[in-house]
């Protein structure tokens, strides 16, 4: 671990707008633990509650290309952007190939944009488990909006919905028919659906099928109605309409009070998961509990006691109230 003075220096450089220091703080967030907590304490006064947009969809749908196009529309309005792109870690080697920057080459030369690739390091759900902390770094660095691009997802990797204010689900004509669109999961978390690769001959039909299935859902008066937008990230078509819809959704969130509620929910779930992590660490580092588990597992193995009996015994050792 770094000395306190060294950490202070990194935070000072970060406050002065140094890119390398920002990159270093993001690594500290990724590695977690007490050092990450100390950084959050230090930057807490600078955290304002940045607007978070999640982008998710199957692999190869064109998420990175579309995001890099969309970024320029935010930059035209002088909004500063943090972009988090997540790719999977190998369950075998632990390594990862993070290739989203290939589609975002035009962004690195803009000082108003900071792109960071994260490996999911085994976290399920499509995002990295340091997403909140990385967002805090962007927030404190004065960014106005953060994009979070998930790994290429299937139907049930939905964690991005819990970590963002607006969710854009990016699909392509090959993503499936109307029945796929009616299924639970991915199709339920989108505020905006994008049918990308609009030059594909089946794109219009696919977009109408999604629209039809969205219409089957009940929407209360005044609630946001999810919509479908045809885009081509490659040709920069329809991206202006996507930006308009995103602006409308942001305004809806502010006007309805939903933004405030979502911010609170994100922070509440963060306290919960940090608490669970902390308890887990404490349990695993407790000598008394380890000894009890070692002694009693034989009984579990031989069905003399159930797993739950052992859990009750452990639970009674942790006196919370």
């Amino acid at each position, binding site marked *: 671990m770094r000395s306190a003075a060294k950490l202070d220096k990194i935070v000072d450089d970060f406050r002065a707008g140094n*890119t390398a220091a920002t*990159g270093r703080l993001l690594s500290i967030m990724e590695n977690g633990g007490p050092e990450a907590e100390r950084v959050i304490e230090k930057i807490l006064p600078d955290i304002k509650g940045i607007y978070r947009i999640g982008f998710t969809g199957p692999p190869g749908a064109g998420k990175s290309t579309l995001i890099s196009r969309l970024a320029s529309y935010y930059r035209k309005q002088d909004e500063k952007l943090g972009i988090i792109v997540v790719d999977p870690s190998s369950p075998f*080697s632990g*390594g990862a190939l*993070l290739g989203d920057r290939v589609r975002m080459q035009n962004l690195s*030369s803009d000082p108003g944009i900071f792109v960071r690739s994260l490996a999911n390091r085994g976290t399920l759900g499509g995002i990295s488990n340091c997403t909140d902390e990385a967002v805090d770094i962007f927030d404190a660095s004065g960014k106005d909006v953060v994009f979070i691009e998930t790994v290429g997802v299937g139907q049930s990797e939905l964690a991005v919905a819990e970590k963002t204010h607006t969710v854009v689900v990016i699909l392509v004509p090959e993503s499936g028919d109307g029945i796929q669109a009616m299924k639970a999961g991915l199709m339920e978390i989108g505020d905006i659906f994008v049918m990308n690769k609009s030059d594909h001959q089946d794109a219009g039909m696919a977009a109408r099928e999604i629209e039809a299935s969205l219409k089957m859902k009940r929407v209360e008066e005044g609630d946001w109605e999810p919509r479908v937008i045809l885009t081509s990230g490659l040709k920069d078509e329809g991206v202006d309409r996507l930006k308009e819809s995103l602006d409308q959704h942001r305004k809806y969130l502010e006007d309805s009070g939903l933004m405030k509620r979502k911010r609170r929910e994100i922070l509440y779930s963060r306290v919960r998961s940090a608490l669970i992590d902390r308890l887990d660490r404490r349990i695993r580092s407790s000598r008394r509990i380890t000894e009890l588990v070692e002694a009693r597992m034989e009984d579990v193995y031989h069905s003399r006691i159930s797993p739950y009996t052992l859990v009750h015994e452990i639970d009674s050792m942790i006196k919370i109230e």
Partner: protein
Amino acid sequence: MGKMIRVLVAKPGLDGHDRGAKVVANALKDAGMEVIYTGLHQTPELIAEAAVQEDVDVVGLSILSGAHMTLFPRIMELLKEKGGGDIMVFGGGIIPAEDVEELEKFGVARVFGPGTDTNDIVSFLKEKLHG
């Protein structure tokens, strides 16, 4: 487990031969490293900026265009300017022996030529970065 090694693999300049860079990127991934691959035709500025944003430990450059004597020093200079002076730089590609010597004198950690066993690159990086 030691600290995760993060590597940026980049192709600066104009040549479009990225097979070597991809083979190396894949081998480093399989060796448990996080590899950021940035694609073809990168300018030195883009590479240095990406390296500090990603906070990598090492940058690997693949150059087959003959412009290595300009590109390596320029990228290392930019890394220093941007606060990434501690980032190790290694390379590969078609680079004559006398230039290799010159580049290593300049601070390039190692140049791996054609036919290199990727295991040698992996163990070189692990040894340099984990001691």
